[in-house]
């Protein structure tokens, strides 16, 4: 039964004629083998879902995640559950109740009156001032707010394709869900009244884009070091490799820290800091991949097909781009995907120490950093929602990476 359920998710490998199998390119072979890994396919779908939702985050989020969208009437508010039916009857259209905050009842009159110290004592020992009482809210079950789809809301930029003076910024103001009256907080709000759900899905994209920038920078440096070292060999190779070896043995997070401290001294806008951090993370991570590429190129450059290309009069660049790069292209793609979670973790550890991105920016690291606040741990457990998303994201990446690694193994087929 269980296997039957799983077999729905994984498509059976098609019966291939021998010819198409042997003429298939490496990428299509990998794709075909990947489809037979059940856990990888499931993780891939989850990953695709997360990436899509985060890329179109403004469309999917019901509330503006910045301070402009903060709901001052519903600070520290709990998640508003979506219902379909209750004791007042069933409704085909999902709805949420109307929530209103209970005003803190601080009896100043008793203080100003004859009470004096005794009244003050009663006030401080009562629960009017404790933070848990700030989370109290009144649910009005009779006032239903119905969910609406494709509602008009704040305007946002769907995709910004502007290049230079060419203005191709596509703007839209429709959102997937909303309610007819007030704001919808599926995952509650934080202490400023910002919507946790909207912040989280915006944060995923920021974090992913840092990882993408970092990985591109890393790829560039790895290709540079590995390529130069492998192609020229000899003394250049020896010097570059001893340097790479030295970089490899130093633990990276303290180095990121040192660079982040140095960056904190420079006055940067949030966007610049964001890119600087990505570049630092990427640039210091070239050692492992660079070494692999160098070994690969060292063995490949003596192969017959390179000699044949040289005899045909191909230039060095042509040999590198047309012959060498395709031979390890799939390896690079797989390695990059496997490294995604580690880069994301590096970003979050920096943010945890307050040295990465900081508060007004929505990154997963910033949101995770908030989770260490005892106030949030005890009174606003819904702010752990980004943690759940983070765990799902990392797990999806690791499982996809595993499946891809297995799929990219050219010898896997025969056993």
């Amino acid at each position, binding site marked *: 039964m269980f296997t039957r359920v*799983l077999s729905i998710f994984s498509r059976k490998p098609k019966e291939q004629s021998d010819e198409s199998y042997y003429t298939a390119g490496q990428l299509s072979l990998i794709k075909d083998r990947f489809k037979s890994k059940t856990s990888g396919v499931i993780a891939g779908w989850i990953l695709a879902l997360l990436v899509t939702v985060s890329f179109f985050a403004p469309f999917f989020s019901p509330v503006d995640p910045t301070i402009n969208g903060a709901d001052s009437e519903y600070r520290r508010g709990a998640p508003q559950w979506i219902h379909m039916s209750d004791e007042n009857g069933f409704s085909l259209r999902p709805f949420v109740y109307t929530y209103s905050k209970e005003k803190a009842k601080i009896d100043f009159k008793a203080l100003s009156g004859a009470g004096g110290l005794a009244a003050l004592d009663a006030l401080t020992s009562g629960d009017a001032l404790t933070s848990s009482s700030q989370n109290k809210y009144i649910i009005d079950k009779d006032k239903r707010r119905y969910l609406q789809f494709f509602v008009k809301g704040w305007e946002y930029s769907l995709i910004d394709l502007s290049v230079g003076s060419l203005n191709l910024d596509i703007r839209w103001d429709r959102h997937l869900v909303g309610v007819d009256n007030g704001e919808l907080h599926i995952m509650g709000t934080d202490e400023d009244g910002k919507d946790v759900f909207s912040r989280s899905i915006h944060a995923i994209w920021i974090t992913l884009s840092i990882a993408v920038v970092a990985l591109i920078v890393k790829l560039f440096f790895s290709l540079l070091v590995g390529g130069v070292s492998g192609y020229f060999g000899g003394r250049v190779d020896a010097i570059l490799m001893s340097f790479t070896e030295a*970089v490899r043995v*130093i633990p990276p997070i*303290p180095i990121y820290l040192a660079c982040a401290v140095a960056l904190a001294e420079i006055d940067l806008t949030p966007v610049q800091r964001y890119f600087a951090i990505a570049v630092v993370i990427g640039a210091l991570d070239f050692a492992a991949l660079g070494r692999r590429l160098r070994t690969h190129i060292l063995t490949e450059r003596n192969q017959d097909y390179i000699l044949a290309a040289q005899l045909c009069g191909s230039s060095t660049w042509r040999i590198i781009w047309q012959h060498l790069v395709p031979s390890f292209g799939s390896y690079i793609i797989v390695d990059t995907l496997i490294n995604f979670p580690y880069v994301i973790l590096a970003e979050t550890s920096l943010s945890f120490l307050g040295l990465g991105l900081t508060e007004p920016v929505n990154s997963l690291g910033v949101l995770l950093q908030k989770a260490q606040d005892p106030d949030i741990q005890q009174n606003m457990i819904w702010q752990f929602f980004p943690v759940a998303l983070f765990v799902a994201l990392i797990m999806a990446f*690791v499982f996809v990476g595993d499946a891809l690694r297995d799929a990219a193994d050219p010898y896997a087929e025969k056993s």
Partner: protein
Amino acid sequence: MKVEYQNRTLVFMRIIRAKTSFEDHIVIADFIADTWLLWILVSVGGFLFWRGQSSQYFGYVFNRYLLALMTLLIVSGIVFSLMEVLPGDCAEKYIAYKSTQGETITQADIAAERARMGLDQPLVVRWGQWVTNLTLRGDLGFSCAKRQSVNLALGDRFWMSFWFCIAALVFSYVIAVPFGILSAFTINKDWTDKNPQNTKAERIINSIGLSLQKFIDLQLRIISYLGLALPNFLLALTIILLYVFAGEPAPTGLFSNEFRDVPWFGEDGFDFAKLNDFLGHIWLPIFVIGWSATALQLQTVRALVVDETNKLYVDAARARGVRGAALWAGYPVRHSISPLFNSVGFDFQRVFNDLPIVAIVIGLTDGAALLIEALALTNDQELAAAILFLVALVVISMNFITDIVLAAIDPRVRTSVMGG
């Protein structure tokens, strides 16, 4: 610094001009005490070189030894120059301290202080001095924030971090190696047995076995990857929080208060209560960093074993009729051990990487916490550089040891590195 150098030249001159044997004695003792590390390094190198003349193996060890020393030199250069990016320097800090004492200070004071500390010299000169002091007597420099030599400030703390990392490594190996092998074993298997040669009952039984294996593999992978996906600091915090909710004292630090000042060996022999308390505290950092290291370890073991499984010698063994556990344990698993052993050094580096943040959350006062303090709070360049250098030293020594051990016991490595 300069005074020290004058002292050293004096020592040399005194050696040359030494008259009485008694004076000789003292001077030579001083000289040895000042340069002991260099003599050890040189004599080890000399011994290896001498043996290397007659034995190919020792020739290889000598090469590795030189390579390790050179890597260390480059590492010290990288670390030392990277620490330059930290804002401020020793002179500024010292003067800033003075100004809190009510003295008025000028830019000229800072410049004078810099000149006194030798900070006005170019980076290369300062690095050269640092390396010279280090190779002569293992002196790691002076920590400005702590106002004492780095060796004193670090003390046993580095060893504490070292043993934490080793314990976490052992923890992750104990979990990752067997489960990684199991994972590799189930990797290309189907959920169901479709072999037409088996009878239907056999196929059902085999299918149940296979599904169970796949299922266990999936569960184990999910659990071990959770260690990676749950950020270390959050995991440590959550565990501490659970203790708080349960109303028990959280296992932060190394000892509970009542055991902090109790000696290990009391009046009635070894104090087991203290050991118990100690173990009750150290499991938390070890568990947290060990769990997160497990994921990568498991991936590595899995990939290594799968790589080996697909090689021709395994097919050959299968063709000879070796089956089941004997085939697995004797062929692919056995051969994937040596690359795993070879990566111990880098695994240590990876584990140490995670330690500082966990140490901060749990409130440890080990070398890793000191590193974060030096980097992010006090900007103590030489202390941070020294700790990073020590970590690199451990990694490089581990790589050196695993390399020479593998060359001694693994015939494949021996032939590849020594050409027969």
